[in-house]
């Protein structure tokens, strides 16, 4: 298995040089991506339901399939059967185009997301740049949806989406840049390979600033996916449903799928940039082809890699869901405040700091591992400390029976 491309070529029996071959190759690549996006959508929607339910002392869907696993599928079939409604005054062309554009921006992103060293559809040497570029295309689709619906609430949602994209894009881009500085490449494959070896080789532990870079990236990526607390474009209690108020049936389903697809993409990017991509963090497992040998070894190694990156991405998706069901929604101007007044300068400072660190620390051989171990230990220690702190706070509030401020009588 040289790569998927040659694999496809061998299946097709010719190099896709002609137009027909090109179309055929696109189709052959598109089908597995579509399947994967759909499965990601199904699984993450189910996860969202289950996680929100368990956070909220409920059980969530239980009827269709084991623990409601097929509920999303049933909903999808229902949405397929719904009438395709377009508001009378809507701009029909843009209205129809908008969900496709939104979906396309997510869909294209999957082309460069690596699943393992070999299993990547297009290993662009500008991978991160490409992802950042197509990721923000989504906002155009959202603005189109809001504008064409001819509904004031949709328009408010569209304007909010546009405001949001100009606010979060810069800190997002700067935090990506910091990683590029560390890795010295924009190719996702190269970035991942720079993190091979033990778990402390992950970029998250590479230097003292990477945790902050990751947090900025994560916050900005929540905004990119329009997830709470940044779900302003569709804030249901304020804007009814925001930009997709007028959408129903399959068009709505496509928006929905694109949202969950985008969640996977930003999580997968985070995994590639900070959490060692397809590497498990245990060198033996990551280079199992050495011990098994032959084609089997390569297949097993790639399978382990794909499984690892998918599991890691879903763990990050779960964190996104956890945040959504915990925090209230931020206000538009506060979102801009946060992104432009805090995240932007911080990410600039971090970029400089990471660059300096890289310039001075880089040449020392083996320094990365030592630094990584220190950072890993510090991370674990601070997590334990935060857990303790949280426990103390909740205990304190449970004991709080008396009022802080009480006045009696007139």
């Amino acid at each position, binding site marked *: 298995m040289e790569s998927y491309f040659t694999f496809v070529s061998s299946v097709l029996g010719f190099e896709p040089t002609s137009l027909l071959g090109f179309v055929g190759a696109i189709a052959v690549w598109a089908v597995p991506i579509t399947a994967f996006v759909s499965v990601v959508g199904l699984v993450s929607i189910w996860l969202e339901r289950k996680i929100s339910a368990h956070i909220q002392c409920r059980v969530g869907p239980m009827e269709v399939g084991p623990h409601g696993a097929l509920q999303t599928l049933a909903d999808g079939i229902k949405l397929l059967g719904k009438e395709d409604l377009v508001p009378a005054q809507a701009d029909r062309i843009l209205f129809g185009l908008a969900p496709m554009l939104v979906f396309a921006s997510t869909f294209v992103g999957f082309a460069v997301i690596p699943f393992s060293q070999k299993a990547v559809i297009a290993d662009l040497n500008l991978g991160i740049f490409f992802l950042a570029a197509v990721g923000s295309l989504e906002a155009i689709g959202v603005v189109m949806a809001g504008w064409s619906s001819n509904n004031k609430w949709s328009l408010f949602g569209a304007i909010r989406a546009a405001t949001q994209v100009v606010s979060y894009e810069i800190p997002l881009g700067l935090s990506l840049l910091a990683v590029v500085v560390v890795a010295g490449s924009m190719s996702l494959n190269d970035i991942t390979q720079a993190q091979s070896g033990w778990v402390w080789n992950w970029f998250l532990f590479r230097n003292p600033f990477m945790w902050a870079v990751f947090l900025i990236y994560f916050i900005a990526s929540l905004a990119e996916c329009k997830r709470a607390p940044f779900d302003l474009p569709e804030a249901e209690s304020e804007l009814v449903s925001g930009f997709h108020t007028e959408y129903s049936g399959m068009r709505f389903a496509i928006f929905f799928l694109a949202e969950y697809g985008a969640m996977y993409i930003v999580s997968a990017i985070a995994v590639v940039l900070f959490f060692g991509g397809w590497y498990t963090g245990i060198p033996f497992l990551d280079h199992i082809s050495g011990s098994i040998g032959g084609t089997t070894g390569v297949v097993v190694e790639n399978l382990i890699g794909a499984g690892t990156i998918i599991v890691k991405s879903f763990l990050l998706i779960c964190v996104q869901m956890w945040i959504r069901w*915990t925090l209230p929604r931020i206000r538009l101007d506060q979102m801009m405040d946060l992104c432009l007044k805090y995240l932007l300068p911080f990410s600039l400072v971090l970029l400089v700091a990471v660059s300096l660190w890289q310039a001075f620390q880089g040449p020392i051989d083996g320094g990365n591992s030592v630094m990584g171990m220190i950072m890993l230990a510090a991370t674990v220690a601070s997590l334990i400390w935060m857990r303790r702190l949280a426990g103390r706070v909740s205990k304190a509030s449970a004991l709080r029976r008396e009022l802080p401020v*009480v*006045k009696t009588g007139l």
Partner: protein
Amino acid sequence: MATSDAIIDQVKGQFGEAVLESSTPLGFPTVCVAKDRARDILTYLRDEPGLEFDVLTDATAADGLKYPEPWDTRFQVVYHLRSSRDGKRLRVKVGVPERDCTLASVHDLWKSANWAEREIFDMFGVRFEGHPNLKRILCHHKFKGHALRKDYFIHDGQWLDEPETLLDEIGDWGENPADEGFSELVPVNLGPAHPAMHGTLRVFAKMEGETIVKAVPEIGYLHRGFEKHSETGNWTMVIPYTDRLNYCSAMLNNIGYVRTVEKMFGIEPTERCQYIRVIVGELSRIIDHCVCLGAMLVDLGALTNFWYLFNIRERIYHLLEGLCGARLTSSYARIGGMAHDLQDGFETELREILRDMPRNVSDVLGLIAKNRIFLDRTVGIGVISREDALSWGWTGPCLRATGIPYDLRKVEPYDVYADLDWDVATRDGGDVHDRAMVRFDEMIQSMRIIEQALDRMPEGPVMVEDKRVVLPEKDKVYSSIEGLMNHFVLIYDGIKVPAGEAYVPTEAANGELGFYIISDGSGRPYRIHCRAPSFYLYCAYPSLAEGNMVADAVPLLGSLNIIAGELDR
């Protein structure tokens, strides 16, 4: 505190013959004043040092057309005043004849008069001169006639489907973009079918970007004619209607109504009944606050809190369901007591709830109390000053959030509240955050009250022994002529409430729930007016929302806890 007589004497001394009549029915000082001097007298009452009636609790009217003893004028407009300094109350009645059905408006004296006068105009057709916006408020704008007049029959159905544009209230938009006055403000209808407008509210807003420049509310979507409806049945039949006022805490409405009728009878409920009323009343208050806080936090996008709060509510509803068979519409109170005693196991279940409740409350507080986003979204939003809050007629948690410890359970204690040890929860900010926190504090105080009431509750009957209001025991009905006659008369004629009038305020979950009742001595209510706290809270909403963003206007509405059933009656 000035005594009732002293107040009346002072007014009489100042205005002489303009004070036509004065009395103190059931301890409530009342003056009847001449129509043309009404505004002067009300101004004097508001401004004169020593009187300072700075709160217009309620204004309503009554139609004397069918009253057995004819009134001097057909209509009486009734103002209930209260002084926030010492809590004294005064009723001012102004006769308005049918031919010259006008009265000077007092909307500039008390802000709460604005909507109250609109309601009187809507229901009785009394025109208030000088009122800035004398439009119908509860009935449809094309409605013909005045619903609460005694000669309006409710069978006269009217088919009205034309929506109200509200363009006259929102002001000029300018038509031509080239014109000077043209504005690029966007008109937006928030509601009535908007997720944030909880029940059935509509706010028509001029928007500049996301900021509300001007807001005009329309209410009445849930107007069911509670007051008119009450006049059709007997006194007991009103109780289920009161369930539907503030349906989040129906028990408190039941209690508020029967307390008013009991006051007219001069009945004091039994001690056990009073304890039961305190317990179920406080449980209802907890439920109501759960709904308010849960919904408000949903408006803020914090959905999870809703479940944590509704888990408490669910358990209390389970308890109340066992008590009276219904969750929302309890109809548990009766004139003279309660429908029946507590069920077996009530106390055990309640103590379990009380044991678990602090954990649920602290879960929610743990999620929001120090949450930066929550604080950013609520602190300093929708701030109202104490003076404004009083002038708008605010009561309840929303008033207490401005720092005024006005709680009827402390100020004018009823039932057994005076015997129990609890505190009035107040905050000083008057913003969305403090209104929410006052409610959290009140839930904790309500738990304290319930715990003590459970400890002290005596055994005994839950109904008074008064054959005027209570059906006799079945064996007396079957074995004695007196019992049979008593039963027959009570069933056939209904409870005959002594002629007169009464206004009795109760501290409901949203504030002062007052029932103003006029009885003509027959078995049917002559006039029942409900002073709904939501009505006076909501009339201040547009002025609070203006200048805020939509995103803030929504939790602001949530923090007021407007219950449409009570608002529109």
